[in-house]
């Protein structure tokens, strides 16, 4: 946690304390470089690039970071989808717990307290859905034949997300994707809060690779994710440039990706999200099981 005016240039510019006074030692603050979150680790960008956001050094992701993130997300997906729904719910609840305990940190980064609290509640809300979505969205179907016929929702796979700027928006696009067993590659808009959320996720028993967060210029990296053959869906919630959105949709059509179009820019994430964000990233598997006669 640090105030906005402790940028290192500023600190260096200060005159050193007088040599004569052996008084209280001056403590140097430990400055943080905001890095990417890929496969459960916090690497710098492969390209070595950074950019300044409010005086903080933040990694600027390249297409190769996006590629690495997809590899990590793909590797993590089967095990995450194979975990029990109860277990996934517990993990999401744990994220809410950790987020709750770090409220001050987000407040210091300028996220309103009410928004952090709403984000905590959002994680809890989705955690509860983990073992209920299949009851609501799947079920047994009556069929004209000697079959037991069931439809079960299954995660679609790796989901790329262009996240909206607000913190609640960020949580509101990640949670519905991962609660059902998808893994995500997120292009975050507000880098400091997003990386701090990554630290929350990294300490919440979320397996490495389930959530991957890239900071930087979404217009640069999003086209690579949209055209990537190993990404199954793309959520354009945070795209404000409609021309870019169209271009991304066109690229995504190459392998018949599922596309969630950008919503209303004034989208109110405080409202009840309903089931749509979860259901949009599910495939329905229907099984015809012969009845023994």
């Amino acid at each position, binding site marked *: 946690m640090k105030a906005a005016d402790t940028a290192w240039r500023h600190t260096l510019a200060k005159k050193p304390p007088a040599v004569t006074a052996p008084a209280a030692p001056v403590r140097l603050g430990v400055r943080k470089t905001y890095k990417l979150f890929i496969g459960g680790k916090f690497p710098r960008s492969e390209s070595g690039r950074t950019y300044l956001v409010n005086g903080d050094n933040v990694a600027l992701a390249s297409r190769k970071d996006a*590629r690495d993130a*997809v590899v990590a997300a793909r590797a993590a997906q089967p095990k995450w989808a194979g975990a029990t729904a109860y277990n996934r719910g517990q993990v999401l609840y744990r994220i809410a717990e950790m987020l709750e305990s770090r409220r001050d940190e987000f407040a210091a980064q300028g996220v309103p307290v009410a928004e952090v609290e709403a984000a905590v509640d959002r994680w809890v809300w989705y955690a509860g859905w983990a073992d209920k979505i299949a009851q609501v969205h799947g079920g047994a179907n009556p069929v004209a034949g000697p079959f037991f016929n069931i439809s079960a929702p299954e995660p679609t796979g790796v989901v790329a997300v262009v996240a909206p700027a607000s913190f609640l928006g960020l949580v509101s696009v990640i949670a519905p994707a991962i609660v059902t067993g998808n893994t995500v590659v997120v292009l975050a808009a507000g880098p400091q809060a997003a990386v701090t959320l990554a630290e929350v996720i990294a300490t919440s028993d979320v397996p490495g690779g389930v959530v991957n967060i890239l900071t930087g210029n979404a217009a640069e990296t999003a086209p690579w994710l949209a*055209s*990537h*053959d*190993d*990404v199954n869906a793309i959520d354009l919630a945070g795209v404000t440039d409609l021309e870019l959105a169209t271009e991304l949709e066109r690229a995504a059509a*190459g392998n018949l990706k599922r596309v969630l179009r950008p919503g209303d820019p004034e989208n109110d994430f405080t409202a009840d999200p309903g089931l749509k964000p979860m259901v949009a990233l599910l495939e329905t598997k229907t099984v015809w099981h012969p009845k023994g006669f």
Partner: protein
Amino acid sequence: MTATLDLRASLHGLPGVDKVGVEARAAALATRSVKTTAKAAAIDLAIRMVDLTTLEGADTPGKVRALAAKALRPDPADPTCPHVGAVCVYPAMVPYVAEVLAGSGVHLASVATAFPSGQAPLDVKLADTRDAVAAGADEIDMVISRGAFLAGRYDHVFEEIVAVKEACGDAHLKVILETGELATYDNVRRASWLAMLAGADFIKTSTGKVPVAATLPVTLVMLEAVRDFRARTGRQVGVKPAGGIKTTKDAIKYLVMINETVGDDWLDPAWFRFGASSLLNDLLMQRTKLTTGHYAGPDYFTLD
């Protein structure tokens, strides 16, 4: 007896391998960056060098036929993609592959001589070899008797290779040294020379059945051996690293090493091969990335 002493004297007269030096050299060569058109050329060459291999107890005629079809047209979506160098299977599977590959220019390799351990009587090994050649294999991958080699019975290993070479007839003979079991680079160098002196057309690193398979330093030692052997005798011998080469990046490191160690003469499927199975899909994905401009995914290539 004198022949034995000569062989022992000449093999032990080879200069020792500088372990640290060869590992540093291999690591230095692995840092080269190959991009754009050179990368595209390297990928196509690597595809042509692949010995597409399946050596499982669970191989079925259907599985090897599918593999052979893939060898002919690795990327069905792109007719400009070259075919691989060869298909490598167990002798019992050779007839099924031969049907598919007939007249295609793709070679048909078969492991023989009690692969992978090589622990069988010589007449069994020779019968194994003759059967594979009769069934249609034009390349034979034999294993040396590591037990005899490590015990110092070089003449035994030498005579075995000579006998198998004779049983091969017109088929090319690749001799598998199983470097993972030879323990030292000195032994790798001696085994390479032993195999070449006995008449091997190719020397191959590994069976793929022991934990340590092809590595860059081992392949470097073997490349130096074939280079020095040609300088000494005028006969060119091929090299085939096998096992553990899974990515395009790895394959390109080997191509760089060939170019820097033995030169262009070996940059050809006739003189260098990769024994691999999963490597091909990665090469195809990288190739697709270059031709289409977007990242490819494993869902779009066959599982084999």
